[in-house]
């Protein structure tokens, strides 16, 4: 769409109309056009109504198929949504994002380089064998093995040794103080699986033919390529509080968002995490189930992926941030189901920081309130007028399209020529793994979630030469603060340093933050009991779901 220059208009109306049209088209045929009175407003709930009893089976939608269920490759939504119910970690990540004992009953940190885990006794693997510290050692060591090529290698990059040091004890030693290692023992890197099964299956461990052998409340049953993954209750599960209430759970893989929304509304599928934002209002208005909002650890932001180009100048990045009316964009892109933010970290991961530090991290930082005049001025100062900038997008999420359009029209307003490069969903995900895919791309949107309750998980990837620092941004002061923070084991000191890192990142904008997003979950009328929270990635959430009062 070409528009005359100088026509000063906010990106909002045109886009909002386009989006609502798209939404109507996309959802036509779902028999729901009535939008409820709560549209665009939400409240977080910690839990959902308790189940009335057990249930024989329920189905759950997945947006994409897991590549593998091997914890070493469980690095995305789909893999972990499934795996978290079958495999457990040394520590447990709770719905309020606190951490409590899991397969380890306790841990100690006797000196800055040593982590000692006491391993729980009497835990059975799904094949009936008993878990021993040896299984823990093998499970952790796999991540260091180049032959395995673990996606979680960076969690273990400072690990010097993993050894059994007692009858029920495993000790991990690091080469330098590393506060992040232990934090991630409550996520996929801390998963313990049977050493015997892992060795026996070799490269087939966790794939469609083999499945996994872990300790969780559900065990692997069947994986039908491209269609579904089924798991069943594990009767010898060690934790009575989390005994599975369903005999069987089937994950149904449905790439197509419309198909997914249809299937949820007709009751063909009972539940799903992460409802497309443009479907939330019609689904809330429907009477076949409920949408719940919960604690998340996800910020949607724009990754600046080329610091060599025009965006290498911080003034141009600031101009872009100022030119986006994020209040309006939150309505247009995520239908109000997101809170505009100037920080790359969600507030939820600062839960353990004291109030003063949290205030410093979120208030005493640069703010980019909508200001076209200033944005134009900055572009002029930087001499970047007319520069061509490529924004890669895809239909991966309904908001991506709107964000890219908004960015393009905001760019036009301030004298930049932003070109949209639309890619397929899978090709888009390659941007995050293959440096070749980023060639010629200046920016793209991401929904970046954290796997631990620590803002440093975000900021450590923006250090110089980190793989996920896609734009190769480099700031010595920032690197120094983050390195010191990572090496700080005292939580209060660490959060104080993290607040400094947040201040620098917001000031320099290696990525441009957009919204802090809530977790969303849909449960149809048949089921209830899940705790709506991002912890579903690493916590056996499905065990809590049972029969709803009908």
């Amino acid at each position, binding site marked *: 769409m070409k528009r005359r220059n100088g026509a000063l208009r906010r990106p909002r109306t045109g886009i909002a109309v386009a989006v609502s049209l798209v939404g109507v088209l996309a959802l036509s045929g779902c028999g729901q056009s009535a939008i409820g009175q709560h549209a665009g407003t939400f409240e977080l709930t910690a839990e959902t109504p308790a189940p009335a009893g057990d249930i024989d089976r329920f189905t759950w939608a997945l947006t994409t198929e897991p590549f593998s269920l091997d914890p070493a490759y469980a690095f995305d939504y789909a893999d972990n949504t499934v795996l978290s119910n079958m495999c457990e970690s040394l520590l447990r990540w709770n719905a309020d994002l606190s951490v409590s004992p899991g397969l380890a009953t306790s841990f100690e940190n006797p000196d800055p380089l040593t982590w000692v885990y006491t391993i729980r006794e009497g835990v059975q693997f799904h094949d009936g064998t008993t878990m021993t510290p040896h299984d823990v050692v093998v499970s952790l060591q796999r991540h260091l093995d180049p032959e395995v*090529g673990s996606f979680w*290698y960076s969690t273990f990059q400072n690990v010097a040794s993993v050894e059994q040091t007692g009858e029920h004890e495993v000790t991990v030693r690091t080469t330098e103080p590393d506060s992040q290692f232990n934090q991630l023992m409550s996520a996929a890197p801390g998963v313990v699986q049977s050493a015997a099964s892992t060795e026996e299956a070799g490269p087939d461990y966790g794939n469609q033919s083999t499945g996994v052998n872990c300790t969780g409340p559900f065990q692997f049953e069947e994986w039908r390529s491209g269609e579904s993954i089924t798991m069943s209750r594990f009767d010898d599960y060690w934790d009575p509080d989390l005994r599975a209430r369903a005999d069987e759970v089937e994950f149904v893989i*449905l790439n197509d968002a419309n*198909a997914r929304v249809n299937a949820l509304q*007709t009751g*063909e599928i009972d539940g799903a995490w992460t409802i497309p934002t443009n479907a939330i209002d019609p689904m809330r208005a429907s009477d076949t189930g409920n949408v719940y909002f919960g604690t998340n650890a996800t910020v949607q932001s724009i990754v600046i992926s080329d610091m060599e180009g025009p965006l290498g100048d911080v003034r141009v990045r600031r101009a872009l941030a100022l030119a986006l009316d994020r209040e309006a964009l939150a309505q247009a892109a995520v239908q109000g189901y997101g809170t505009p933010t100037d920080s790359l970290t969600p507030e939820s991961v600062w839960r353990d920081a004291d109030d003063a530090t949290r205030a410093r991290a979120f208030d005493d930082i640069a703010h980019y309130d909508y200001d076209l005049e200033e944005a134009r001025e900055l572009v002029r100062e930087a001499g970047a007028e007319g520069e061509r900038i490529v924004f890669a997008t895809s239909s991966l999420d309904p908001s991506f399209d709107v964000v890219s359009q908004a960015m393009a029209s905001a760019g036009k307003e301030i004298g930049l020529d932003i070109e949209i490069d639309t890619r397929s*969903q899978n090709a888009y995900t390659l941007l995050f793994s293959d440096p070749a895919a980023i060639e010629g791309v200046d920016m793209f949107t991401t929904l970046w979630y954290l796997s631990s309750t620590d803002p440093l998980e975000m900021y450590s990837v923006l250090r110089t030469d*980190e*793989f996920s620092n896609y734009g190769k941004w480099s700031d010595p002061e920032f690197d120094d603060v983050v390195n010191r923070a990572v090496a700080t084991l005292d939580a209060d000191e660490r959060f104080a340093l993290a607040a400094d890192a947040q201040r620098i990142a917001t000031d320099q904008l290696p990525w441009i933050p957009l919204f802090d997003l809530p977790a969303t979950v849909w449960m149809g009328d048949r089921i209830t009991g899940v705790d709506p929270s991002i912890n579903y990635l690493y916590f056996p959430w499905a065990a809590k779901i049972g029969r709803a009062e009908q």
Partner: protein
Amino acid sequence: MTETSTRAVRIREDRPTRPSGRWRRTARFIAGRVIGLALTLVAASLVVFFSRFVVPGDPARFLLRGRSPSEEAIAEVTRQYGLDLPPLQQYLNWAGGILQGDFGRSLQYRDDVSTVLLQRLPVTLELVALAAVFIVVLGLAAGVLASLRRGRPTDRVILVVSTALGAIPSFVIAILLIAIFAVQLGWFPSFGSGDEGLDRFVHLILPALALGLTFVALVTRVTRSSMNEQFVREHVEVATSRGLTRPSVVLRHVLRNAISPILLVSGVLVAGLLVSSAIVEQTFGLAGIGSLLVQSVDRLDFPVVQAIVLVVVIAFVTVNTIVDIIQPLIDPRIAAGTETR
């Protein structure tokens, strides 16, 4: 890559001299066809394999999607998947493996390609088969009806409707079918392939219709024009004037001779169905070969892409070869091995 499917047919005017000579010519013709088939496949396999090297992106990077993979891990993965060997060596390993039924390992699933394909092949074959049944039944019925009602309103309606259907892309039909029959009326499931047996059949009805309707138009038009051509033929006029009943004239004299062109489009149909099935499978959440191909192209899972493309090429070339070989058996006017290309 594939041969054009236009065939100039020489009508034989002379009677065959000796049966044995005809048999030998037929044998030579079939042998020639089979050798041609083999050569086509070898050429195709070369194209299929080496096309990977013009696609940007490093498969090893896809296999190490974590944050900051170590250099050792990248080297190790490259070695594991034989990506460090010279391309020709890689081709020979791959082709040698295929001859033993080993298509290599899928990068995305970390599993044998053959395992993944075997899991998904049944759904696609069932979908294409059911769609083919719909196409043949609906297409033939509509074509025959139109031809019998030449020039009347019925004929025109059929032509207009079939042309319109032929112009609508499969995915639009798919969305409409889901909206009407699955969501509004709730008669059919809206996604998935169900369990083996009747449940599978019920699940595949809508996708097969979505896949087939586009091609019904083609079969309808070919049937109609082919039959119209026959109706004005002398032998039909003669048969009619001899007082044979209309059904027997239509069946024995018109349809039988009209079948040849219909058979010719079947080769094109098979390829078209396989290509369109990707879109339909995606829309209906069916885990078939088509959706696997689309997803694997995107994910640079080249062992899977190569295997699927090769299987499709084999299917296409084989169907065409079979059509070539049985053509003379159906239509005695075409002598084996006498057509020119």
